């Protein structure tokens, strides 16, 4: 079942390859805004880099999410899936996995590049990718809850941000802290551990909450 659902997501994504690139572009462009907005000074940039990379990744991830559910809601696909006996929690999980594969993974891959562009200290570069790798699953799943709650609403997009971003704050803090520590040459395994724990925690609980929420949204 999961395979069938995931295959469909992959096929849909393949139809619009440009959308694979869009979140990446968003990530790059918003990250580039900071040198313009704050200061192009390399030392200042280096200080900013961990936080800016994390915040931008987080926004790109959240914004790309919208389309993942809304299309399927609007054309009735979500209802049809539920009526075909697919558990809502499974639908949500698939969406989250697809979101991670198509949005988070590319972001993780280019994140070192942005680190370099923002003059991050070389020892922090690997940490950027690593913290994102461990933190993004939790973010995708938390976002899935928010998305399931707001999918029935027109213009739910920004309400979604309101619901989800506060819950991202702990992840963001630890992610950026980890990169900072790495950039200063310290160990950052504690932060990685925390991120991994968060991801495991949400993977095991969030689908249920999101599934229940999806059921409610479909009801309206």
């Amino acid at each position, binding site marked *: *079942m999961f395979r*069938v*659902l995931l295959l*469909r997501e992959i*096929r*849909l994504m393949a*139809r*619009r390859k440009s959308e694979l690139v869009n979140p990446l572009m968003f990530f790059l462009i918003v990250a580039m805004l900071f040198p313009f907005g704050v200061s192009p000074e390399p030392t200042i940039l280096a200080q900013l880099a961990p936080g800016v990379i994390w915040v931008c990744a987080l926004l790109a991830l959240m914004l790309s999410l919208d389309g993942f559910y809304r*299309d*399927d809601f*609007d*054309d*009735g*696909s*979500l*209802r*049809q*899936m*539920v*009526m*075909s*006996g*697919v558990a809502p929690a499974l639908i949500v999980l698939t969406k989250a996995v697809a979101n991670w594969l198509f949005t988070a993974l590319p972001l993780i891959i280019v994140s070192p590049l942005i680190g370099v562009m923002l003059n991050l200290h070389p020892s922090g570069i690997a940490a950027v990718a690593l913290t994102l790798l461990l933190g993004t699953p939790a973010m995708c799943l938390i976002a899935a809850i928010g998305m399931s709650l707001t999918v029935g609403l027109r213009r739910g997009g920004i309400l979604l941000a309101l619901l989800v971003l506060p819950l991202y704050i702990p992840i963001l803090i630890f992610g950026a802290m980890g990169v900072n520590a790495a950039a200063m040459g310290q160990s950052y395994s504690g932060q990685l551990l925390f991120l991994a724990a968060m991801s495991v925690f949400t993977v095991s609980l969030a689908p249920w909450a999101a599934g229940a929420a999806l059921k409610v949204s*479909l*009801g309206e």
Partner: protein
Amino acid sequence: MYSRFTITAQDLALIRGDRLLFKHCNFTVSSGQVLYIKGANGAGKTSLLNTLTGFIEPDNGAFSVSPENHFHTWLTRNTLYLGHHTGIKSALTVTENLAFYAHLRGVTKPDFTSAIAAVGLAGFDEQLAAHLSQGQKRRIALARLLIEPVALWILDEPLVALDVDGQAWLCGLIEQQVNNGGAVIVTSHQPLTLNCTVSELELAGVGNV
């Protein structure tokens, strides 16, 4: 042939907004029967189907199905529901759309080509659904009726957007389903010409709470 079953709705009542749509609503549908739900615009037909499929909670009453125990699991296994939004993805081709639902349902060796030809879309197999007309999009959804062998069809205005040939074809298909021991719950504002026993349920509109 499907195994015999009987669905019973008991003493349903539904309030939407500040209007009581129906109360003391009872009906049964068994294998080999068509239930034709009638009523003016806004009478509550779609809402009734939504309570049946579990997307709206009724304010009173409940459904049951006779040889089984748990209504909702039975329903998701044995029902195909087609409403206003048909769940056909514009970005997928006709075949891909059908294949997805067939796989979800676990159909073994589905024959897409002949089903697509039967709904009059021969030659459009590999077209994106986005590039089809209103009526053609609905025909994709109807092709699911040929592919997925489920006992109960719930059709909310299935004749909408179909041309004259399509309407006649669909009426024939409903008869066939009933003859195979299935059941059909249908609403329609267009005349349904069916050569089988049809029980009617008229929603009259009860008015304000």
